[in-house]
């Protein structure tokens, strides 16, 4: 295991249509860790996450200033399509491609990006991704089914598998369990812990559930109105939050 820096954000300012969303954000995220980005609605959590894979570029009138390095590469000066291939993303609402089978949902990204060269490699990769997403046992006999036959929680794990099929070193999750039942939530959390341990993945997850952040994260970034108000190891912040906003948030008062 290495403990280099996976993500280094320096003086990041993001505005959309002239309105500032993130103000002077500076954070360093170590490799092979789980980091939770917390904060109330509208604090810029999702924006920060979407800068990391340049999905922010899809929004009209967005302006991004500063420097964001992922594994040493300044992604703001890299082709956005290449940046997106470096990381996997899971969204707030399960969004498996409705026109593709369970298998093809996982396989599409790997196929397009040339990650699997042969049919056998692809089969193995799909199996690996579904296993890592803790979904393989439930779908191995019906890989050709459309995703709407799965429950919401299964669909979200399918989305996790789709992201993993890119073999990313960085995994981004935007409130992945906000619309999921408790059993599936725990499964996804377990999958994330294993990915960190077994695959050395760096995981960044946006959450507004303080309990979830405490359960699985190593570091917490607390955002409020576009400003990082506190950042540090989860144990320290959970026991002894330095900032009034953080303690209120952890107590569920925000």
């Amino acid at each position: 295991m290495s403990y280099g820096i996976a993500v280094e954000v320096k003086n990041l300012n993001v505005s959309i249509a002239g309105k500032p969303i993130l103000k002077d954000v500076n954070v360093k995220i170590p490799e092979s860790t789980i980091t939770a980005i917390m904060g109330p609605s509208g604090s810029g959590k999702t924006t920060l996450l979407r800068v990391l894979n340049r999905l922010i570029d899809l929004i009209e009138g967005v302006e991004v200033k500063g420097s964001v390095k992922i594994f040493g590469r300044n992604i703001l000066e890299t082709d956005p399509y290449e940046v997106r291939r470096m990381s996997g993303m899971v969204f707030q609402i399960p969004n498996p491609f409705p026109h593709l089978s369970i298998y093809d949902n996982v396989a599409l990204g790997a196929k397009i990006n040339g990650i699997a060269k042969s049919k056998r490699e692809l089969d193995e990769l799909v199996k690996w991704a579904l296993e890592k997403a803790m979904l393989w046992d439930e779908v191995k006999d019906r890989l050709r089914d459309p995703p709407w036959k799965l429950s919401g929680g299964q669909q979200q794990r399918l989305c996790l598998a789709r992201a993993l099929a890119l073999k990313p070193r960085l995994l981004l999750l935007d409130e992945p369990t906000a619309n999921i039942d408790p059993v599936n939530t725990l499964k996804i959390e377990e999958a994330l812990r294993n990915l960190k341990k077994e695959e050395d993945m760096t995981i960044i997850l946006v959450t507004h559930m303080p309990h979830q952040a405490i359960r699985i994260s190593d570091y917490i970034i607390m955002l409020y109105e576009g400003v990082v108000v506190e950042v540090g190891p989860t144990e320290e912040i959970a026991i002894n939050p330095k900032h009034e906003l953080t303690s209120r948030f952890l107590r569920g008062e925000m």
Partner: protein
Amino acid sequence: MPNWRSLKSNVFIVLVVILALIAIAPVFHIIIYITLRGLPVILEAGIEFFISTPAAVIAEKPGGIAPAIVGTLFMTTMATIIAVPIAVLAATFSAEYPNHIITKAVRATSRSLLEVATILVGMLVFALIVLPLGRFTGLAGAIALAIVMIPYVYTYTELALLSVPKTYIEAGYSIGLKKAQVIYLVTLRIARRGVMRGVTIGVAKAMGETAPLLFTAFGARNVIFGGPLEPMDAIPLMIFQFIQTGFENWNKLAWGGAFVLLVLYLTLFIISRRIVREVRV
């Protein structure tokens, strides 16, 4: 004591059912009437109806409408081949860049084309293609039909593309797809039923048009297929011309043609529903 509420409710239900029947009655009237007038003609003429040209007006049997059937199939197919790629590409551009100046221009043009009398389309093609070539041609007819089709296919495709939830598009980008790949592998695939609906309506529209063909394909009732650069017949054109004559045989052919057109429509709608499955979002 009478139950006024349930009485009132029942009266309204009966009223709504009657009104609904009145509203759809014309559809059944058309189907039944055309079948009653058209089917006997085809039975009388036999296979000749589909493979030969119209008989002389004083002949014993009416003959057939092969030139019109072949012409309709040829020109509709050509029109579809011309119109669908143009319309789908334009719709893709519009959905991708909704505020672009080109989008606004295309949308306005398409909307006015939907409203314009189709005979004007025929006159436009007459001026642009028929006059320079110096003759009426099936190709000119196909181009006129394509111009009629484009705004339908465009409008339906654009709507279908815009109704694809953004989250799937984002998911496409998140796994490293390029813009063209997102459009082709995600958006168009999810919207396929809507695109097909637009194509179906466009084809139906083109198949039933008479006016755009008057100055372009013109009609050729005695040649089954003379090639794309010759005048060409079409079923609606044939109906329009034959029903106005006083000859019994030709009136019969017109009714038989109407029945063929009806069957073509039903086949078109059934096939288009069958070959493209709905994507459940």
